C-alpha cells in the first residue's frame, strides 16, 4: 500500500539513484585565478594547466572508467578507498587519488600578498615542536627538502596520526596518505636496502592483520610535473617549491588540524 511516508521514501530513492558523472570542483576565487593566476605561484596559463585542465583530465577519466559501475556516483575520496585494495582497479585508484590529492593541494593557496597575512596556529607549531621541529623555518626546510630530493612524481604530506602526533611522509606517484598499503613511500626501482625490505614486510604484516589506518593529511605538496612544468620548466622544481611555500593560506591548514 502506498502511504505518505512511502512516497517520500520513493522520492529519496529516485534522487540517490540519479546517474551523473564526475566534474571539476570550483575553488574559491577560481574565476579570478583563471584570469590572473595565483600571484607569486602560478601564471594564468600555469593555473589553468595545473588545476582546470589537469583536474578535468582526472575527473573525465574517472567518468570514463567508472561509468555504469558502483563507483559512478561516489566522490574521488570514496573511490580511492574503495579501489585501494583491488588489484585490477589500480588505474581507477590513480585517477581518484590524484583528483583528491590535487583538490586538497589547490585549496591551500591564495595570492602571496594575502598569504603573508596568515600564520600557522600556535597549536600547529606546538604539535610540530613535539616532532623535533622547533620553528617554521625548520618545518619549511624539512618539507621542501624531502619534496626536492626525491626522484620522479609524487606528493609530500604533513599528516596527523591517530594519536594526534604529526609526521612528514613522502608518497611516490599517486600514493595516498589514508591507507598504509598504498602510501607508496618506497622506491624499489633502484637498489633495495634492508630498511625498505623490513618496512615492506611490516606493511604486509599490518595488512594481514587487517589493521585500519586513520591517518589524515594536513598539508600537501604536489611534486608532479603537471603542477609546475608550465610555469617553471623541467628544471624549475626548486623555484616552484620555494614559491609555493610563500603562498600557503595557513588559515586552511590550521582548520584541518584536529581541534580539541
Amino acid at each position, binding site marked *: 500500500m502506498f502511504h*505518505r511516508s512511502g512516497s517520500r521514501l520513493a522520492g529519496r530513492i529516485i534522487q540517490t539513484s540519479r546517474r*551523473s558523472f564526475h566534474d571539476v570542483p570550483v575553488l574559491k576565487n577560481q574565476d579570478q585565478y583563471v584570469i590572473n593566476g595565483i600571484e607569486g605561484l602560478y601564471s594564468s596559463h600555469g593555473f589553468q594547466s595545473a588545476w582546470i585542465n589537469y583536474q578535468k583530465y582526472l575527473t573525465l577519466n574517472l567518468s570514463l572508467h567508472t561509468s555504469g559501475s558502483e563507483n559512478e556516483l561516489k566522490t574521488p575520496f570514496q573511490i580511492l578507498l574503495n579501489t585501494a*585494495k583491488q588489484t585490477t582497479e589500480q588505474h581507477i585508484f590513480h585517477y581518484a587519488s590524484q583528483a583528491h590529492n590535487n583538490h586538497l593541494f589547490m585549496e591551500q593557496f591564495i595570492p602571496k600578498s594575502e598569504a603573508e597575512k596568515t600564520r600557522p596556529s600556535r597549536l600547529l607549531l606546538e604539535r610540530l615542536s613535539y616532532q623535533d621541529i622547533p620553528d617554521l623555518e625548520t618545518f619549511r626546510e624539512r618539507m621542501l627538502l624531502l619534496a626536492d630530493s626525491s626522484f620522479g612524481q609524487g606528493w609530500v604530506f604533513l599528516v596527523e596520526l591517530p594519536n594526534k602526533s604529526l609526521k612528514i611522509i613522502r608518497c611516490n606517484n599517486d600514493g595516498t596518505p589514508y591507507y598504509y598499503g*598504498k602510501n607508496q613511500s618506497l622506491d624499489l626501482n633502484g637498489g633495495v636496502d634492508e630498511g625498505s625490505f623490513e618496512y615492506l614486510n611490516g606493511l604486509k604484516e599490518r*595488512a594481514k592483520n587487517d589493521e585500519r589506518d586513520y591517518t589524515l593529511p594536513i598539508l600537501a605538496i604536489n611534486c608532479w610535473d603537471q603542477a609546475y612544468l608550465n610555469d617553471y620548466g623541467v628544471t624549475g622544481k626548486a623555484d616552484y617549491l620555494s614559491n609555493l611555500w610563500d603562498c600557503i593560506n595557513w588559515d586552511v591548514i590550521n582548520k584541518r588540524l584536529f581541534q580539541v
Partner: protein
Amino acid sequence: MKPQVRASTVLERTSHYLKVGVLKEKPAWFDVVGAHPPILDLSKKPKKIDLKQTDIDPSLKLDNDKGSVEGKFFKTRMNSTDRKQQHNAISRIPKLQFLEDELRDVFYHQHPWEFSRPKNLIENQGDEYKNLDWSHMLQFTKPLDGESVVQRTLWILTNQNNEININNNNNNNESPKITLFEAYDKARFEFYRLRMEEEMNSAVSREESTMYGAIYPSTNLEWGVKNEQEYIDLWAKIAEEKTRVLEASRERNNSTASGKSTKGGETGLEDLIDSSSIWEQNFSSDIAGAKAKSKLNDSK
C-alpha cells in the same frame, strides 16, 4: 502472445474498483495519473483488421452523413474466406525487427563473456542515448560494451557510405559501398583495441605502484572467491531446504500419481526454452551447406 492492453487502462480499472468498493482507499498515484493519463496504447494492431474493407473515400462519407443507415446491409460476422485470411501473414501482428537486434545477437554470441559484465539499467530521462556521439566509440556517460559496438557499427555504416557517395560524385569512380560486415568488423576491432588498452592500463598501474612499495592484502581472484563464498554459503542453506521440499513433494506425487507428472513437467520446460538465434541459425545452415557441398565433391 496476447497483446497486453491492461497496463494502459489501469486508471479506468482502478476507478471502477473504487466505485464498486473493491478498493477502499485511493492509491497515492491515482490523482497524478488521472491528471496525466497514459497516452500510449501499448497494444499492437494487425496490419488489416478487415481485408475486404478498404478505406472509404472521404467524399462519399460526406454524402452518406444523413440517413445513410437505411437500406444497407452490415456484415456482422466473418465468412469462411475471411476466417482463412485472418491468419495470413498480413493479418498478423507485425514482428518488430531492428538491425540493432541482429547485431547485438551476433556480437553477444561471438563474445559470450561480455554478458558477465554487470550492466546498470538506471536512466535519468530515458533518452540519454540521444546525446551520445558515435563518431567515436568511447563515451563519458556510457561504459564500453557490446552496445557501443552496435551503435558504432551503425554510425560507420551510415556516415562512411555518405562519405563514399560524396567521393563518387567527385571522381565518378565506382568504389564499393561499405558493407554491414565491414562496418561491424571495423567497430569490433576498435572495441578490442580499447579493451586491450584498459587492461594494460590496469596491469601497468598495479605493477607501477608495487614498485613504489604498495602492498595488496589479497589478489583480485582471492578477493572474488572470498566474496562469492559468502553468497554460496547462504545459497547452500536455501538450496538444502528447497531440496527437502522438492523431495517431499515428489514422494507425495509418487504415492498418488506414480511420479508421471514431474517427468512431464521437466520435458515441458525444455520445450519452452527457445535457444535458437539468428547467429546459430545462419551458421548451422552454413555448416549444413558446407557439408552437403563436400559430399557432392566426394561423390564426384
